[in-house]
């Protein structure tokens, strides 16, 4: 075995340097070949600007979009986790019908492109579902408390039903993958654990609750964290059904300012910050859980 490298040497430096030169060349070429002038100052007002009337700093489209993406992420993680756990347990249920339902759900979602799935869901289902469920009515409610709550939790009330369909769509989509993670985690627990639990006289429910699930959680956590990160990134897809999240806003601002490169680089950076923050958070949780186990 070779000794683990702990320090960078001059070859590594050379590689980094050549990558840097490559990037600079690309940037230069964008300027000369595409006749593109970089101008970052033009897009700043789309993040934050001083309101002329009040004289206060006000957040603009990009920050609104970021907030919307974060809402989608948080609610999406909760909703898809619930769907995933319920469906995952159905997937290994002894009841044939429940197994069939869960299996169909997983296979339908897994074998359709997310974009197609979202279009089908949005145009066929949610345009009919939302009015029936009274979502539209709720959004048009006169009560200031309702309006205020919707604005805080879900953004502009005018787009409330859109937001709900986007969220539901995203949750159903990611839930299918979480279903499989939950199923695999539970099934990875050796059969002997089930047998030992049953042999001491525990009911199936008690074996599941006290023996299988606590062990499965440790195995499910890492792939689950991974899926949550994927969910955050996949949330950009719902921009196509007019959910005004980060990607949607980036398209708008890009078109209206024609600062295409700047806006997309910044958008990528914003996604990176959110996702990487989540990665660090999940790693920290994992380390803490590992310590608590001993």
């Amino acid at each position, binding site marked *: 075995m070779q000794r683990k490298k702990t320090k960078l040497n001059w070859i590594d430096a050379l590689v980094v340097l050549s990558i840097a030169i490559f990037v600079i060349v690309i940037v230069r070429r964008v300027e000369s070949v595409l006749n593109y002038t970089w101008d970052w100052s033009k897009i700043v007002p789309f993040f934050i600007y001083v309101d002329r009337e009040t004289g206060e700093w006000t957040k603009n489209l990009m920050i609104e979009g970021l907030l919307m993406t974060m809402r989608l992420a948080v609610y999406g993680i909760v909703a898809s986790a619930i769907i995933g756990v319920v469906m995952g347990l159905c997937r290994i249920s002894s009841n044939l019908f429940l197994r069939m339902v869960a299996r169909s759900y997983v296979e339908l979602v897994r074998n359709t492109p997310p974009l197609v799935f979202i279009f089908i869901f949005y145009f066929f289902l949610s345009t009919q579902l939302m009015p029936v469920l009274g979502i539209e009515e709720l959004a048009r409610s006169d009560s200031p408390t309702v309006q205020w709550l919707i604005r805080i939790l879900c953004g502009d009330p005018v787009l409330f039903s859109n937001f709900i369909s986007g969220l539901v769509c995203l949750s159903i989509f990611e839930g299918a993958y979480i279903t499989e993670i939950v199923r695999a985690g539970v099934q990875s627990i*050796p059969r002997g654990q089930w047998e*030992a639990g049953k*042999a*001491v*006289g525990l009911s199936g429910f008690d074996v599941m609750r006290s023996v299988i699930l606590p062990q499965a959680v*440790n195995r499910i956590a890492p792939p689950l964290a991974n899926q949550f990160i994927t969910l955050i990134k996949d949330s950009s897809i719902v921009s196509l059904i007019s959910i005004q999240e980060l990607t949607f806003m980036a398209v708008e601002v890009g078109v209206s300012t024609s600062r295409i490169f700047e806006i997309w680089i910044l958008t990528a950076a914003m996604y990176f910050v959110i996702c990487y923050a989540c990665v660090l958070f999940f790693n920290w949780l994992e380390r803490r859980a590992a310590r608590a186990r001993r």
Partner: protein
Amino acid sequence: MQKPIIKLRGVCKLFGQFQALYDVSFDVKLGERVVVCGPSGSGKSTMIRCINRLEEHDSGEITVDGIELTEDMENILSVRREVGMVFQQFNLFPHLTVLENLVLAPMRARKLSRTEAEKTAMEYLERVRIPDQASKYPAQLSGGQQQRVAIARSLCMKPKIMLFDEPTSALDPEMIKEVLDVMIELARDGMTMIVVTHEMGFAKTVADTMVFMDHGRIVEVAPPSTFFTSPKSDRTQLFLSQILSH
């Protein structure tokens, strides 16, 4: 004549095309110690796993302590609470400490309070001679200690019958004795036991009845005195000569 506590009548069990049990009929009386032996794949484990319904028998009749094993989940649960089982691979719950392993079932299935359950648990840990390991996790114990914890875990449910499925087969040689000693003690206290094992020395000391199985059938049932000295069937003779030859 004492009524049998376990009664098997014409029990058959299929795994797909493979017939694991073929018309097995057999009685165990209260307090009887039965040792089951036979070549691997002969249906020994399947038979005792049918007794607490870890396997479902396809036909025939199994009655344990007056309760017939059917689809009825309540019956199955009451039988399992009367029947303890020790596995070859211990199957302790790795995420729980030794003490938590022991109190889980009494608290959930017998609705004991934690203090009561822990009191019983410590008594049994004392009996299997490892009370000082109570707060450790199974992975921190040796194989022999783990198997003794597994025995204690079963005993905590105060079962009338104990089933042992090759309890020493996964152990290092020097740990076999500590487990067998615990089992011998249990036998002396009058526990009804069915033990699947290849430990013939243990069988001679403990067994009231020897059962020899082959190809899913019970070939011979005899007290150890006649079983080891003058087995009736050729198949038993062959098996014993192979297993005792060295």
